[in-house]
């Protein structure tokens, strides 16, 4: 039982933080939002740090690191509300590494690790909401391979990514495939999202696809759990910065001749924000540290984590805006962008009520970190 970060992890954190502070300031971010919400150059800079290979084995050209390192990176990217969907790389490299055959791994993992291929998860469909077992996209066998038809919505950077990991129904059960954006029958329509980043709807029409695994339900649940851990860690970074920015504002802004940080009602609100931040950070640790547990244990833990993070994100985001007053709802001032990011993260991979249901369904007689 040890929550200290290793020296390597601290170095990793420093490297990412330095890049965010120096390489990804608010002005650059604003320009990227204006240009559509995704910058391949910025993703390339992350690749120069070796980050896309975080989950990729050294044999496949990666760093062979694990969830804690992923958490460290996501926290720092959250602190800078970085738009490029690095978490997608962790999800897809993780799921390919865990479920893919040797062919798929050797074709894709080195390219992912090198930053040459941005691979994202394309699973969201109309009507499924947050359920992972409702899928209309169909996979059929044609010749020696597979063809997919269907539509996936709100795919992160969907019109910019190179390749998709796509769940589809194959012979009555869920399977996971890789689909290249340049393949025949793929159309994508991109748009900005509420947090300033980019997404797209992807339509597949008899599009050739490579099978990752026929154990699609387990793999997709695992993929989404990696996604949840990423969301948790990213959110901790976002909230940490949000709390700091708000504290600074309260100490600067004066009304009635005194800094508004002197008003007890606002001080207590800050204390409550700090509470939510630290509970969230604790549960983000928990999420990442349970990511390699058995599927049952992992699912229960990740659902619990998302419930805590959902509550924390909503409270911290809303209160940060409130404590800023008028300036908190402007586009010019940074805090509203953190708020919007938190809002979108709450709805990513299942919102608070959804995961409360998961926790409720999975309750046992005893509960606890070690129960």
């Amino acid at each position, binding site marked *: 039982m040890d929550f200290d970060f290793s020296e390597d992890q601290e170095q990793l954190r420093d490297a990412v933080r330095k890049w965010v502070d120096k390489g990804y300031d608010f002005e650059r971010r604003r320009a990227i939002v204006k240009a559509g919400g995704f910058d391949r150059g910025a993703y390339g800079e992350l690749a120069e740090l070796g980050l896309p290979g975080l989950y990729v084995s050294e044999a496949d050209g990666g760093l062979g690191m694990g969830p804690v390192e992923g958490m460290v990176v996501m926290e720092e990217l959250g602190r800078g509300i970085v738009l490029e969907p690095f978490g997608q790389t962790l999800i897809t490299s993780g799921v390919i590494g865990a479920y893919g055959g040797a062919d798929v791994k050797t074709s894709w993992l080195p390219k992912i690790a090198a930053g040459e291929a941005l691979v994202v998860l394309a699973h969201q469909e109309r009507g499924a909401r947050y359920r992972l077992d409702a899928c209309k996209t169909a996979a059929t066998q044609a010749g020696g391979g597979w063809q997919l038809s269907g539509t996936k919505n709100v795919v992160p950077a969907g019109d910019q990514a190179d390749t998709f990991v796509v769940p589809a129904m194959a012979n009555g059960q869920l399977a996971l495939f890789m689909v290249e954006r340049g393949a025949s029958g793929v159309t994508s329509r991109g748009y900005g999202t*509420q947090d300033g980043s980019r997404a797209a709807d992807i339509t597949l029409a008899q599009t050739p696809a490579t099978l990752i695994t026929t154990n699609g339900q387990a793999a997709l649940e695992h993929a989404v759990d990696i996604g949840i851990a990423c969301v948790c860690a990213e959110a901790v970074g976002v909230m940490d910065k949000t709390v700091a920015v708000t504290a600074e504002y309260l100490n600067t802004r004066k*009304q*009635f001749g005194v800094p508004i940080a002197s008003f007890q*009602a606002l001080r207590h609100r800050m204390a409550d924000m700090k509470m939510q931040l630290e509970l969230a950070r604790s549960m983000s640790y928990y999420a990442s540290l349970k990511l390699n547990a058995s599927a049952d244990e992992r699912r229960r833990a990740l659902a619990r984590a998302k419930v805590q993070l959902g509550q924390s994100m909503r409270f911290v985001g809303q209160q940060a805006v409130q404590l800023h007053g*008028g300036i908190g709802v*402007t586009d*010019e001032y940074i805090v*509203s962008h953190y708020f919007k990011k938190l*809002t979108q993260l709450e709805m*990513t991979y299942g919102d608070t009520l959804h995961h409360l249901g998961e926790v409720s369904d999975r309750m046992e007689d005893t509960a606890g970190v070690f129960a």
Partner: protein
Amino acid sequence: MDLAFTPEEQAFREEIRTWVRDNLPADISHKVHNALRLSRDDMQRWAKILGKKGWLGYGWPRQFGGPGWNAVQKHLFEEECALAGAPRIVPFGPVMVAPVIMAFGNPEQQQRFLPGIASGEVWWSQGYSEPGSGSDLASLKTRAERQGDHYIVNGQKTWTTLGQYGEWIFCLVRTSTEGKPQTGISFLLIDMKSPGVTVRPIKLLDGEYEVNEVWFDNVKVPAENLIGEENKGWTYAKHLLAHERTNIADVNRAKRELERLKRIAKAEGVWDDLRFRDQIALLEVDIVALEMLVLRVLSAEKSGKNSLDIAGLLKIKGSEIQQRYTELMMLAAGPFSVPFIEEAMEAGWQGNFPGGVVANAPLASTYFNMRKTTIYGGSNEVQRNIVAQTVLG
């Protein structure tokens, strides 16, 4: 004690309902019912229709050309307009500055300004807040110096709602720095076309331009535009605040939006999800409770028997409810509220919104925008100070 409206009140409601049904343009109510963007023209078109009927100044007494309605009638009018999907009346002219002009302006000012307000021809803005003066409004710094028959105004106002359309602005300005901050403030009407007035719209978090910064750089304002006496403006402003009535709770709009929330919940498949549905049920209880609170205030105003000093409660609860229904609408759509496609918030857009339900397009933006409701009009923290004062002294 009786919950039912009197037959006269019901007949009055019927009359309003029929008239609104016959006169509210369908394209405008369509936008309101779907939270699509309203243009300046939309707002002014409806204002002029009301103005022609004599109902834009629906709270005005007869002597100034108003209908002379009592508190209940005003509420019924507001309710019928809200439920029918009418845009909210832009309040700065008919609801805010007009009562001040009636109470403290001279006959010349009344004749000069009230007709344009009543007809909806002239767009008024409010110049109160300044960058350094939010909750502490009395610390305002915009100076007006008397020079002969006019004032020279210098300073900056901010959070001026819809000020980008403004033709006239009523301002609190500092005419003296002596004594308590409140005692050196005057109430001045300023033509926004005057040289030296600059308006800069502020982009809000949802991408919209709704509030503005207004600069005054040696703006020359005729002394005849001063309302009442110099250095008494704070008193007039407080009178105005006292006239912000139950409509601050916006419960009628909440009822309309609750209906919309239920439509969205059904379309998104969460109406049958007990967890989500319970959230709506809790909101429904909140809205009914707020409505009862509003009705109690109206009844007290009507009878004059009891005065209920609970305006702060109406503001707090009303704003929290506004935030909650927009939050639930967004959460109902979930991932399908995530795309930010500005064109899809315009009426008549022919594109295909992700997931195919264009009604989801404005949900997140509206949620973001509504964060303002607990901040403006006296933040809810300030309101709690006021409520506590009534309980604790």
